[in-house]
C-alpha cells in the first residue's frame, strides 16, 4: 500500500471520532502520521507504525465520545438544576406518558404477545362449528362431526375435544369439595405437546366408552394433596364427575405449570359414546395442532370442505354450520384483545401529547437560551455540538421520565390486575417484564427523547448567530418559527385529546347503560352456590328429588332467608340452548328453527329471582308427576301467540325432526337476561326440575332480607350437615356474578377516562403555555395598541380569538378523526352509537371550556399591559 493510500485509509477511520474533534484535529493527526511514516525507511517498521496508529483509533475514538457525552450530561444536569421547576414538570409529564404506555404494553405483552406455555404454540388452533348468525351457534363441536373431521383432514397433526368442568372430590372424614377439572379426548396431551412428569397420559383405550376410569393429576395437586408421593401411580381416587362417582386410577402427573383448560388440576378421558352424542349436541370445544408448515387459514379451508361433505351426508342434522379455525392464542384472548389494543392506542396519544407539550416547553427554553447558544457558537462550539447538547438534554429528560414511568408502571400493573375478577385472565398470562418489555421501554424512551429534543435542536441549529447576538437576547429569531411550531403542537394536542375524550365519553355512556339495564330479575340480596350430589348415593329420580327438597327446606329455615330455588345454572352462567318447535306453526328445519335458552328450575324460581309471572302460574309440586309443562318468557309468547294467550299451547324442544314430547305452556314470565346482560333477543323457556335432570351440578339461589350479609357460610354448613358427600362450590352473590360478567366495561372506562383526563390536562396546560408566551412576546405591540386607544375588551378579544383559532383547528381535526376511530370501539359499546352526537357535543363543550380557562389568564394579563412601561422597555 502506498503511503498516500495508507494515509487516506487512516483518515477514513478518523470518522469514528465525534465530528467536532474530527473537524479540529483530523488534518493534524494525518500530518503527524505522515511525518512518522516518512521518518522510517524500513517498510516493515512503517507498516507496524501505521497498524499501531490504526489500532489506537479504535481505543481512543469511543473514549472521545464518552468524554464528550459526559461533558454534555454534566452541562445538561447543571441546566436542569438551574431550571428546577420546568425540568421537574417535564420529567413528571414524560413519566406519566411513558408510565401509561409501559403499563398498557405490559398488559398487551403478558396477554397477547407472551406465548402460551406449550411447545410450538403457534401451531395450536381453536376449532369450532359456527352457523355464522350473531347470537347463533358457535364455540363447540359435535362429537360425531369431530370424529369425521379427525379421520378425513389432511392439515392437522392431532385434534382433541376438551371441556372444563368442576369435579367433586370425596375424601374420608372431610367435606366433599369441587375442584377444577378437564375432560379431553385421547389426543389432548399430544395436541398440547406436553409429556407427563410421571406415568403416562391417555391412550385411545382409556377414552373408549365404559373403559376403566383413569385420571392424570397436575403437579400442584399431586404435591399439595399427596406430598409428591411417586407411589401415587396406580392408586385410585374417588371423583364425582358428570358420569357419577367413579373410583379413578391415577395414571400420570403433568409437569409444573401445566393447566388446561382454565386452571384444571386433573384430567379425565371423555369416553364419549357416539350413540348418545348426536351431531346437534354442541358442548365440546376443539383444539388442534396443525401440521408443520400448515397455516390456520389452510387448516380452516380443509376442515370447512369436510364439514360441507358432512352436511351433505347428514342433511337432517345440519343447521347451516361451517368450521372456524383460529390461532388458539387469538381465541383465548379474544375478549380482551380489542380492549387492550384500544387502550394501547389511547396511551400512544397520551405519550404523543406529553411529547408535544415538553417539546413546546423546550422550544420556549431554547428561545430563552438563544443568546447563550449564540455565545457558545461564537466561542467555537460547533453547530453539531449545540444540537447534540439539546439531544443530550432531552435524552436525559427522557431517561428520567422513563425511570419515573417504570416506577409508575410497577405500581399500576398489579393494581390494574386486581381490578380483573379472578378467572377472567388466562392462567398462562405472564406480566413480568421480559426482553420484549425492555426493548419496548428503551424504544419509546428514545422516541420520546427524539420527539422532545428534535424541534428545539433543529431550531438551534438554524439559529443565525450574528442576528441573535445583535438582538441582545430578545428572543425573536427562533421565536417566530418556534411560535408557529408550538401553535401546531397545541392544535395536535387538542385533536388527540378530543379523540380520547370521545372514546372515554362513549365508554362512560356504555357503562351507564349497562348499569341501568333492566336485566329482568332483582340482583341484590341474592346468594348463589352450586351443589354436586354423588350419583351413587342419589340416583336420578326420587332420591335426587328428595335431596333437593331437603336442601331447599334447610336453606329456607335459615334466619333472614326469604325464598329459595334451584336451577340448572345460575344467571349469566347459562349456556344450554335448544331448538324450539311450536305446535301449529310450520315445522322448520334445524337450520331455521330458533334457539332458546333452556332452563330447568324448581318451583319458586321466579319468586326468588324476582321475575314477574305475567300470566298463568309457577311450577308446583303437582308438576312432579305431570312434568310435561313449561313456562315461556314474554318474548316467546309475543312472537308466537301475539294478542292471544299462550296458556295451553304446546311446544317441544330439540331438533325438529326428533319428535320429542310436547310440553304445555302453563305460564308466561317476564324476559330475563339469563345468559349475558348485553344480549337482547335471547329468549328463555323453563321446564320443571323433577329429579330427572343431572344434579352433578345444580345452582342454588337464596334470597335474603335486605341489609343482611350474604349467608354463604351458613348455607355451606347446612349442606355439610345433610351429607358431607355433597360438594358445594362457587358460593357468591348474584351482584358479584353480574359485576364480573361486565368487568371489562368499568375497567376499560376507568382507564380510558383517566387517559382522556390526562390528555385534556396536558392540552390545557400546553395551550396556556403558548398563550402566555405569546402575550409576553407581544407586550410591546399590545402596549402600542393600547396607547393608540384599543380597549381592554378588544385586547382580550384579540388574545381569545388567537387561542380560539388553535382550539378550533384541533377540535375540527379531532372530531373528524374520532368519527373514524370510534368505529373501532363499536363492539365495546352498548346502547350508544359510535357517532353519538351527545357525546361529541359534550366533548366539544368540555374542550372549549378548558380552552377558555387556559386562555383567560393570559388574555387578562394582556389587558393589564401598561402602555408607557411597554414602550419604555423598548
Amino acid at each position: 500500500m502506498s503511503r498516500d493510500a495508507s494515509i487516506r485509509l487512516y483518515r477514513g477511520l478518523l470518522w469514528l471520532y465525534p465530528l467536532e474533534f474530527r473537524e479540529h484535529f483530523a488534518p493534524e493527526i494525518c500530518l503527524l502520521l505522515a511525518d512518522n511514516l516518512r521518518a522510517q525507511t524500513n517498510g516493515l517498521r512503517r507498516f507496524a507504525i501505521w497498524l499501531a496508529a490504526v489500532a489506537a483509533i479504535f481505543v481512543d475514538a469511543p473514549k472521545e465520545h464518552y468524554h464528550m457525552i459526559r461533558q454534555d450530561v454534566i452541562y445538561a444536569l447543571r441546566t436542569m438544576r438551574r431550571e428546577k421547576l420546568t425540568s421537574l414538570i417535564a420529567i413528571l409529564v414524560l413519566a406519566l406518558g411513558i408510565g401509561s404506555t409501559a403499563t398498557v404494553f405490559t398488559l398487551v405483552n403478558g396477554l397477547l404477545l407472551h406465548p402460551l406455555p406449550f411447545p410450538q404454540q403457534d401451531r395450536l388452533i381453536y376449532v369450532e362449528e359456527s352457523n355464522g348468525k350473531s347470537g347463533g351457534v358457535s364455540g363447540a363441536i359435535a362429537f360425531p362431526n369431530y370424529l369425521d373431521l379427525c379421520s378425513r383432514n389432511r392439515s392437522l397433526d392431532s385434534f382433541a375435544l376438551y371441556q372444563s368442568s368442576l369435579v367433586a372430590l370425596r375424601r374420608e372424614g372431610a367435606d366433599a369439595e369441587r375442584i377444577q377439572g378437564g375432560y379431553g379426548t385421547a389426543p389432548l396431551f399430544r395436541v398440547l405437546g406436553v409429556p407427563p412428569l410421571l406415568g403416562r397420559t391417555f391412550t385411545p383405550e382409556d377414552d373408549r366408552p365404559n373403559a376403566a376410569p383413569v385420571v392424570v393429576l397436575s403437579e400442584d395437586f399431586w404435591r399439595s394433596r399427596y406430598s409428591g408421593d411417586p407411589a401415587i401411580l396406580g392408586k385410585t381416587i374417588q371423583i364425582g364427575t358428570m358420569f357419577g362417582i367413579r373410583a379413578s386410577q391415577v395414571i400420570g402427573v403433568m409437569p409444573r405449570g401445566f393447566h388446561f383448560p382454565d386452571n384444571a388440576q386433573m384430567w379425565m378421558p371423555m369416553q364419549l359414546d357416539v350413540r348418545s352424542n348426536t351431531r346437534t349436541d354442541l358442548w365440546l370445544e376443539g383444539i388442534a395442532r396443525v401440521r408443520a408448515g400448515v397455516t390456520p387459514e389452510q387448516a380452516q379451508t380443509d376442515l370447512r370442505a369436510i364439514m360441507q361433505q358432512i352436511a351433505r351426508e347428514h342433511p337432517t342434522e345440519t343447521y347451516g354450520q361451517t368450521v372456524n379455525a383460529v390461532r388458539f392464542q387469538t381465541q383465548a384472548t379474544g375478549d380482551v384483545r380489542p380492549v387492550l389494543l384500544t387502550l394501547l392506542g389511547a396511551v400512544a396519544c397520551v405519550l404523543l401529547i406529553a411529547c408535544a407539550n415538553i417539546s413546546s416547553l423546550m422550544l420556549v427554553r431554547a428561545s430563552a437560551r438563544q443568546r447563550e447558544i449564540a455565545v457558545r457558537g461564537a466561542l467555537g462550539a460547533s453547530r453539531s455540538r449545540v444540537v447534540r447538547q439539546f439531544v443530550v438534554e432531552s435524552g436525559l429528560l427522557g431517561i428520567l421520565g422513563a425511570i419515573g414511568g417504570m416506577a409508575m408502571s410497577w405500581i399500576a400493573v398489579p393494581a390494574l390486575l386486581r381490578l380483573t375478577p379472578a378467572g377472567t385472565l388466562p392462567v398462562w398470562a405472564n406480566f413480568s417484564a421480559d426482553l420484549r418489555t425492555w426493548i419496548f421501554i428503551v424504544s419509546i424512551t428514545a422516541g420520546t427523547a427524539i420527539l422532545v429534543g428534535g424541534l428545539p435542536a433543529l431550531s438551534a441549529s438554524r439559529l443565525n448567530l450574528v442576528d441573535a447576538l445583535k438582538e441582545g437576547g430578545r428572543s425573536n429569531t427562533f421565536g417566530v418559527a418556534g411560535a408557529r411550531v408550538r401553535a401546531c403542537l397545541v392544535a395536535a394536542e387538542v385533536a388527540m385529546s378530543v379523540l380520547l375524550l370521545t372514546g372515554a365519553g362513549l365508554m362512560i355512556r356504555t357503562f351507564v347503560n349497562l348499569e341501568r339495564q333492566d336485566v329482568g330479575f332483582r340482583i341484590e340480596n341474592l346468594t348463589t352456590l352450586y351443589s354436586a350430589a354423588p350419583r351413587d348415593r342419589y340416583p336420578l329420580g326420587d332420591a335426587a328429588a328428595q335431596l333437593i327438597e331437603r336442601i331447599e327446606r334447610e336453606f329456607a329455615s335459615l334466619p333472614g332467608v326469604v325464598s329459595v330455588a334451584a336451577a340448572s345454572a345460575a344467571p349469566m352462567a347459562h349456556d344450554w340452548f335448544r331448538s324450539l318447535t311450536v305446535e301449529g306453526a310450520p315445522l322448520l328445519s334445524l337450520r331455521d328453527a330458533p334457539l332458546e335458552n333452556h332452563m330447568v328450575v324448581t318451583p319458586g324460581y321466579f319468586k326468588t329471582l324476582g321475575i314477574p309471572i305475567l300470566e298463568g302460574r309457577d311450577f308446583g309440586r303437582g308438576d312432579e308427576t305431570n312434568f310435561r309443562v313449561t313456562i315461556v318468557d314474554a318474548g316467546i309468547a309475543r312472537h308466537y301467540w301475539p294478542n292471544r294467550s299462550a296458556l295451553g299451547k304446546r311446544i317441544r324442544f330439540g331438533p325438529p325432526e326428533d319428535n320429542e314430547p310436547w310440553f304445555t305452556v302453563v305460564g308466561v314470565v317476564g324476559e330475563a337476561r339469563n345468559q349475558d346482560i348485553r344480549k337482547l333477543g335471547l329468549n328463555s323457556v323453563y321446564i320443571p326440575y323433577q329429579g330427572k335432570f343431572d344434579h352433578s351440578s345444580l345452582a342454588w339461589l337464596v334470597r335474603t332480607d335486605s341489609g343482611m350479609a350474604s349467608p354463604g357460610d351458613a348455607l355451606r354448613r347446612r349442606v355439610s350437615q345433610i351429607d358431607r358427600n355433597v360438594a358445594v362450590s362457587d358460593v357468591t352473590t348474584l351482584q358479584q356474578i353480574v359485576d364480573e360478567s361486565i368487568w371489562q366495561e368499568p375497567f376499560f372506562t376507568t382507564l380510558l377516562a383517566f387517559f382522556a383526563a390526562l390528555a385534556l390536562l396536558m392540552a390545557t396546560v400546553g395551550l396556556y403555555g403558548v398563550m402566555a408566551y405569546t402575550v409576553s412576546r407581544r407586550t410591546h405591540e399590545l402596549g402600542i395598541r393600547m396607547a393608540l386607544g384599543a380597549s381592554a375588551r378588544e385586547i382580550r378579544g384579540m388574545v381569545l380569538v388567537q387561542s380560539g383559532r388553535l382550539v378550533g383547528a384541533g377540535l375540527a381535526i379531532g372530531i373528524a378523526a374520532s368519527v373514524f376511530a370510534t368505529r373501532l370501539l363499536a363492539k365495546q359499546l352498548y346502547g350508544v352509537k359510535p357517532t353519538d352526537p351527545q357525546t361529541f357535543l359534550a366533548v366539544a363543550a368540555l374542550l372549549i371550556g378548558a380552552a377558555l380557562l387556559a386562555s383567560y389568564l393570559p388574555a387578562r394579563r394582556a389587558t393589564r399591559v401598561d402602555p408607557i412601561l411597554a414602550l419604555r422597555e423598548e
Partner: protein
Amino acid sequence: MPRKRPEPESPSDFLPLQKDMFHILVALAGHDRHGYSIMQDIAARTEGKLQISPSSLYSAIKRMMDSGLIEELDERPDPERDDQRRRYYRITDFGRKVAVAEARRLERLLADARATGLVPKRL
C-alpha cells in the same frame, strides 16, 4: 491572542496526572510546540520507549485544552521555522502548576521508595 479556557479549582484535582499528559506538559515547558515536535521531544526524552499514537496524542491535547492545562496558539511562534499547516500549543500557568504538583508527587513517591530501602539513596 490565545483563547481563554476556564480554569478548574485546584491542580491537585488532576493528580495523579496521566502519563501522556505529564510528558506533553514537560515537552511544552521549554517552548511552544506543534504535535510532531511534542512527539519527537517525548521520544527523545524516553529514548523512544514511549510511543504515543497520533490519535492518542490529540485526544490528550484536546482533553488538556478543555481543562485549561495548555492552549492553542493563534499566532505562530517563529515565522522562520513555522509550518503554516500546524497548530502550536503552549503550557498555561495553570498547566505549569499542575505539572509542578505532579512532579512533587513523583518526588515524594521516590523519597518514600528510598526511605523504605527499595531504591538506593544514590543511584
